[in-house]
């Protein structure tokens, strides 16, 4: 085993009664990587993280953090990592500094080490203003920062962050992501979220889980090209030629290489349509010629590698179809957007699983 593997999960499985929360998850995170751990709610992200932090024991499989088995020496594993659980549950009756001192005492940090690290933590997490405030009075964003602070206090090489940006406003989100980028420069970070733009900002690599299985694992570029299609956005002037979506769908769908056509939310005067095309072809010329033939006024036409969003939806689709007794927030909106191709996506997620 290479020594630079910091986090390693090997066919982890976990059952809660009849619910199979994890179904053979395997992955590795190497030293210095910042990895996004993605998946709809209930896909098993938090469960995986709780196993890695020795809060839960897996039903099957093994996990090693920093080369230490979570079964063999939970205390050493916990000592080596900084962990921020979902929603940053802190003691609301304590002050920020008091809390950080408490964590340092439990972690057995010496006073000089604590002072040195505290300075850094206050800097990185921007805690200077709230140091004497009571945690109960802090906004959720600040609590999240305090949570991040306690995870960094002992200067761990491995950080496990469970949805550090959930429930934050956009400014706070950007702040926290900036902190994570800064932290990730010289540490190993496993970061769970279902906000994809954050992953694109902060991580180079992503692991996507769905229904307790890893459905994709690789560099972001790799994952994007995973579904093998390119996305085109076509905007046509509504007033000038008034083609209905039906017409557009029929004509564009008739082009060679177009896999599917779907409507995007309308702009003021433009009818926007999204096409999925083959990875290795460029349909823009064809689309332009079609527009000229039909007499449409083309307002917009661009081609992009499929967004992570779309890949995510494709790969994790069907999560809500499976009755696991849980509502999945992340997959709920995707239901209506891509209900046109349920078969295709479930096919693709099956392929990815293998």
């Amino acid at each position: 085993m290479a020594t630079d593997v910091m986090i390693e999960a090997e066919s982890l499985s976990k059952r809660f009664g009849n619910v199979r929360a994890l179904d053979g998850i395997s992955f590795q995170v190497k030293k210095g990587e910042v990895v996004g751990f993605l998946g709809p709610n209930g896909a098993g992200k938090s469960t995986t993280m709780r196993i890695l932090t020795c809060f839960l024991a897996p039903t099957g499989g093994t996990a090693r953090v920093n080369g230490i088995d979570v079964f063999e020496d939970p205390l050493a594993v916990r000592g080596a990592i900084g962990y921020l659980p979902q929603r940053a549950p802190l003691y609301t009756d304590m002050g920020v500094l008091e809390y950080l001192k408490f964590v340092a005492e439990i972690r057995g940090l010496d006073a000089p080490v604590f002072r040195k690290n505290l300075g850094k933590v206050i800097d990185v997490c921007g805690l200077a203003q709230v140091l004497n405030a009571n945690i109960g009075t802090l906004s959720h964003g600040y609590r999240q920062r305090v949570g991040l602070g306690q995870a960094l206090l002992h200067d761990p090489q491995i950080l496990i962050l469970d949805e550090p940006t959930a429930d934050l406003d956009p400014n706070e989100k950007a702040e926290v992501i900036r902190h994570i980028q800064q932290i990730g420069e010289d540490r190993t970070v496993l970061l769970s979220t279902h906000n994809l733009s954050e992953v694109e900002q902060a991580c180079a690599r992503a692991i996507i889980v769905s229904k307790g299985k890893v459905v994709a694992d690789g560099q972001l570029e790799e994952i994007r090209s995973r579904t093998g299609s390119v996305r085109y956005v076509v905007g046509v002037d509504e007033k000038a030629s008034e083609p209905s979506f039906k017409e557009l769908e029929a004509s564009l769908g008739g082009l060679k290489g177009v896999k599917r056509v779907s409507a995007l939310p309308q702009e003021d005067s433009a009818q926007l349509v999204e096409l999925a095309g083959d990875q290795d072809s460029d349909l823009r010329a064809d689309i332009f010629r079609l527009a000229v033939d039909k007499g449409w006024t083309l307002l917009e036409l661009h081609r992009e590698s499929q967004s992570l969003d779309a890949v995510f939806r494709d790969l994790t689709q069907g999560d809500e179809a499976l009755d696991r007794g849980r509502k999945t927030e992340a997959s709920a909106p995707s239901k209506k957007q891509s209900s046109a191709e349920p078969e295709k996506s479930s096919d693709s997620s099956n392929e990815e699983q293998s």
Partner: protein
Amino acid sequence: MSTALVIAKREFKSYFDSPLAYVVICLSFLGLGLMFFNYRGGFWQMNRATMQPLFENLPAGLGLLVIPVVTMRLMAEEKSSGTLEMLITLPVKDSDVILGKYIGAMGLILTVVVASLAYPLTMFGYPWNLGPIDMGPVWSGYLGVVLFSFAAVAVGLLVSSLTESQAVSFFITFIVLAGFWFSGSVADKAPGLVGDVLHYVSFQSRMGGFMRGLIDTRDIVFFLSVTVLALMVSFRALERRRWA
């Protein structure tokens, strides 16, 4: 400092960060004063230099009100607010968490017990001297109260670690401790073996000896066994989360 003590210190401090500790201490003394001087004629009526009423009222008040209130939050609050995950994923042993919580709560109860020393000290020492008192039964009575508190707090912690609701924790602890307390009085009416068992587990009958100045090893072992057993089951209850 050992991890359990760090947790205990935080727990003890957090009682005083909320109004809880102050309310508990004030009400205990108000109640204790009323009972001591007025209940069934009270201290003056007895017309003897004795602290006996203190050792009838103090453990009952602790067990039926103070200890359920103090222990209800110990684990239940941590579980319902999610802070347990934060605490457990620090490098602490599960046993340290249980022990730390226990010592923290015990600290508050002992504060109340020690403060009640004001009764014998002021009444029979300085500034008043109400008569020649035999301090033997006073000290043995205190030993009994402390042992009783050990067991009762452990039971409260155990109940708290089985539920996420503080209210449920309070009521169950109250019912269990009331059961252990009054089972002695019921025992007299119960036939044969049942009566013996009820008498055997009664905290109140166990306290009787200490009150009269009688230190019986069996009573000490009984209270300590209940304590250790309850702590071990709490530890198991906490550990159970990993496999649930």
